[in-house]
């Protein structure tokens, strides 16, 4: 009897899980597109006589997408709450420098450097959040403003790479465990935490509420300003983690690390590619991970087919616009 009850409860729980996943239609669509793209890549490589699904290539994709992946998770949180963060790219550059200069090549300084990076990024996020909530400046302008301020600091203080990262810390960027890159595991950990946050905590529920309709959230007793501040802090911390990862890969702090990667616009692209509404309130982490992987696999195919970078960007742009047009169409007809 109890056995039966338990079984039924498990079945119900599973049902709800599947329901929830299938309810997240854009996420499903992006993974479908990802599977098709991988098949296409495999086909092209096989015809070319190479191996697309080689361990080397798989690890390469992970390592190249981990930093963007982590930033995009943070960006997802801000966008879900109805905001946007354009300061992540410069913040990443800044945090690579903070990390590398404090580490100064000594393994003993690593914990202090990590703490400093997290503190600096949280502070930037706090400033973003306060500008948005207290000064009532739209997130687009607020974060553009902090981005310019950080750029000013970087331009004034650095001409090129500075500091150095000890060998012990470089494991983060380069090691792998079987077919899994350590950096990808870090990304996965961030993604899972964010997923838990969104689907299982009050803050997560409130992020959806504020993004869905700030006034509704406020009238339901949600302290909307705290939620906005929280997502900005979390997003900046994600950028800080990405900065640590990049420092580890580059071996030094670089004032152009973030902007070279185009992490600001790229992360927003990945988020909306994953089906999260730019206006907020709808979407999630799963879609963003799919979006980042889609961009990474596309890159990997281009790189190995030696397509020129112009064609690469054109295709990425087309993919992005097409995906959003498809989402818009599906929502209209649904």
């Amino acid at each position, binding site marked *: 009897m109890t056995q039966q009850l338990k079984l039924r409860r498990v079945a119900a729980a599973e049902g709800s899980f599947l329901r929830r996943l299938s309810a997240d239609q854009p996420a499903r669509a992006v993974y479908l597109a990802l599977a098709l793209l991988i098949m296409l890549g495999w086909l092209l490589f096989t015809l070319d006589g190479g191996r697309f699904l080689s361990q080397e290539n798989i690890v390469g994709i992970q390592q190249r997408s981990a930093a963007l992946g982590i930033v995009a998770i943070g960006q997802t949180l801000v966008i879900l709450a109805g905001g946007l963060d354009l300061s992540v790219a410069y913040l990443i550059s800044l945090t690579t420098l903070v990390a590398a200069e404090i580490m100064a090549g000594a393994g003993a300084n690593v914990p202090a450097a990590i703490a400093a990076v997290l503190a600096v990024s949280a502070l930037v996020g706090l400033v973003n959040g306060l500008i948005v909530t207290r000064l009532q400046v739209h997130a687009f302008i607020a974060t553009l403003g902090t981005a310019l301020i950080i750029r000013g600091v970087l331009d004034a203080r650095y001409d090129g790479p500075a500091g150095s990262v000890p060998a012990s810390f470089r494991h983060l960027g380069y090691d792998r465990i079987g077919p899994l890159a350590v950096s990808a595991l870090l990304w996965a950990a961030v993604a899972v935490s964010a997923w838990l946050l969104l689907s*299982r905590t009050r803050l997560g529920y409130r992020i*959806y509420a504020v993004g869905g309709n700030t006034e509704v959230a406020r009238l339901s007793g949600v302290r909307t300003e705290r939620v906005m501040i929280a997502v900005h802090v979390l997003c900046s911390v994600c950028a800080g983690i990405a900065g640590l990862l990049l420092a580890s890969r580059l071996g030094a702090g670089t004032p152009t690390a973030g902007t070279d990667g185009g992490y600001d616009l790229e992360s927003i692209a990945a988020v909306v590619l994953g089906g999260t509404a730019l206006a907020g309130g*709808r979407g999630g982490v799963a879609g963003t991970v799919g979006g980042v992987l889609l961009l990474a696999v596309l890159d990997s195919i281009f790189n190995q087919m030696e397509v020129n970078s112009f064609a690469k960007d054109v295709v990425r742009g087309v993919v992005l616009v097409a995906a959003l047009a498809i989402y818009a169409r599906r929502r209209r007809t649904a």
Partner: protein
Amino acid sequence: MTGIGKSFLGVRVLDGVDLEAAAGEVHAVVGENGAGKSTLMKILAGVHAPDEGTIEIDGRSVAFGHPIEAQRAGVAIIYQELTLLPERTVAENVFLGREPVRRGLVDRAAMESATGELLSSLGEESFGPRDLVRRLSVAQQQVVEIAKALSLNARIVVMDEPTAALADHEVGLLYTLVRRLTERGIAVLYVSHRLREIFDLAHRITVLKDGARVATAEASSLDVATLIRLMVGRELDSYYPPRAADPPGEVMVSVRGGGNARLRGIDLDLRAGEIVGVAGLQGSGRTELAKALFGAEPFTTGEMTPCRPRSVREGIAAGIGLVTEDRKAEGILPHQRVRDNALLVARAIRRSAGTPAIERLLRRVRLNPPRPAQEIRLLSGGNQQKVVLAKWMTVAPRVLLLDEPTRGVDVGAKAAIHELMRELARDGMAVLMISSELPELIGMSDRIVVMRDGGIAGELPSGSTEESVMRLAAAS
């Protein structure tokens, strides 16, 4: 609530208003738009703080700085525009801001089962706690709002125009819900323009006018005429303007066999000088008919003269105007000035109207006060609607389609809009009016077209009874 006063930007909105509600009572609050009803309710719900006066609940004085404090004190408010998140589930909406937590994580199972219990206690079985709110009808969403109020252990439930968005057959369900609330000893404050509902439901009625209380009386001691006199301060001897004496003129628009994804076999003539009413239940294709005639959701089959518009611009060029049902979302640009709203259509088709012309028009639609430079969102619903009408009058259409032209509009503005409609018809316009309010439809229309399942179910002459309209609309 005693002696409540409130000013916005130096304008006195409420002046020494008293209001009380007893447990298990339905207390109706009525008044024209701008009388201060909504402001009073928002003060009770903690959205605004009063400038003066006190609020007592169970004999204890309270002051709310934030809606959440009012919630904790047992006040729940159900707004005119539903305040639900369409992309979240029913349970997530009911417990928004107060999700139950176990070991730091949201206890989804507890939340869903509690929501399920609330819904079944309200007799609601057509949807469940896990359904997305976006997929529910307006009436179902209202049930969610009420479940939310109950989950707050509300002792006082404020309902602001709860039937404004309901189809007629859904109103009965709301009555049942309200009675269930009062059976639990909850005091219901019921704000509405619809006088029939008020007499159906309310035990007591408080009338507000220009921010002050005019009267509080037992509902049984009042009749409709007295209530209207109290609200507008004058007798409305004839609720509707007289019909045209002349027979209708030439055919302005004619449709034969019109159809699209939502409509089929539409045969309809609209003549100069007549007001044609369109009745039908929600989903019967009323709004779709107007949008098809206008070209917003064009007919794909059938004949239409003078032309079958394939787009809004073609519709406007053919001399057709549409006043949409959802004023906030489709009718006005809230942050723009009255003048710019009124000029929207004229500018879109590159026909400009001078300032004096606009002022004349605003006076003609009885905008009161006619301030073209004011932001339209600061106006009452009735005045906003008058500006929307002025917007179409700038291009002098041959045919004007009105979808629920008096929804959310106070009694005085309603009468003004009715007069204006008659005036436009008399000047040779063909007017088509969709309305869910049968007395209005019967009082205004020269004939009534009844829609059902995307087609025209029949036509009734002026002076038909509500019963005959309903029979045609609901027949299966």
